[in-house]
């Protein structure tokens, strides 16, 4: 049989449905949904060491992060959108982090806060128990530098995360 006269839909494995209303409605809806999602990312309570104190400072009254939608910090990963890894990850904690990440429902985002979560930080050389960067364990979206980063730096990272969500990643 000649290939050019063969109908592709005859051998296509799935079913093709025409979209009602066309493509423009779905993409506008996507934009609205992404905007809504970016302004309401709920973080998970996860702080291991010193960066957790700066995270708590960001949550409190002076550098309030609930202005940007991070209102409720959930203790359970089932209800959280973003996990802010504040602190060093060590070999014993890595499976716990992986399990928490797996328990979070999609779409989920990860912010690696501080030098330790980015690359092992001050504990890079001559340590036998530190994971040199949280991205060895889970995929990270935003990295924040600092030891510990200022609350404004964390807010900047969260706003960049919001921009990333709004762009549809």
């Amino acid at each position: 049989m000649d290939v050019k006269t063969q109908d592709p839909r005859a051998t296509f494995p799935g079913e093709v449905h025409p979209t009602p209303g066309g493509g423009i409605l779905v993409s506008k809806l996507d934009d609205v949904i992404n905007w809504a999602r970016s302004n309401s990312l709920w973080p998970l309570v996860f702080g291991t060491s010193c960066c957790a104190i700066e995270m708590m400072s960001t949550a409190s009254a002076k550098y309030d992060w609930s202005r940007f939608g991070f209102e409720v910090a959930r203790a359970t990963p089932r209800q959280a959108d973003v996990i802010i890894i504040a602190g060093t990850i060590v070999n014993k904690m890595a499976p716990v982090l992986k399990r928490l990440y797996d328990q979070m429902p999609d779409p989920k985002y990860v912010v690696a806060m501080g030098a330790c979560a980015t690359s092992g930080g001050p504990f890079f050389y001559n340590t036998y128990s530190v994971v040199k960067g949280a991205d060895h364990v889970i995929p990270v979206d935003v990295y924040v530098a600092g030891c510990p980063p200022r609350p404004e730096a964390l807010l900047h990272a969260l706003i960049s995360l919001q921009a990333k969500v709004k762009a549809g990643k």
Partner: protein
Amino acid sequence: MIQEKLLSICPAAVFEENTQWPTMNIDSAEWRKLAEALKNENDLAFDYLFCVTCVDWKTHLTMVYHLSSTLHRHTIVVKAKIADRNNAIIDSVYNIWATAELNEREAYDLFGVHFTNHPDLRRLFLSEDWVGFPLRKDYEDPINMIKL
């Protein structure tokens, strides 16, 4: 002077010169007897064990105990030498000073010193299946440790 009293309990002890506090070196076999005397004798009354360490001297290990008395306000340091690195054993003092329980687990975890009569000798900081004793001088870990 406490030095005479301590020498009478443990005649084989050797005192070091020019140290911050009276420091005695004993063998690990005499530790238990000395510990009981340090706690129970009225004019010694060492009831506050504030630092339990182990030092790896490459040929042998030494357990270092810093003790203080809240009654008489004096402090001593006891260094118990463990001669055999591969079979490091010393008596546990968990029922004399309650703080020794967790501290001895830490010494076991990081140095491999085995404490006899300890109620629950397991690893404390590292996971149960970790191989090796990291703070020993001959510990090699090419996977995790990045040398500067």
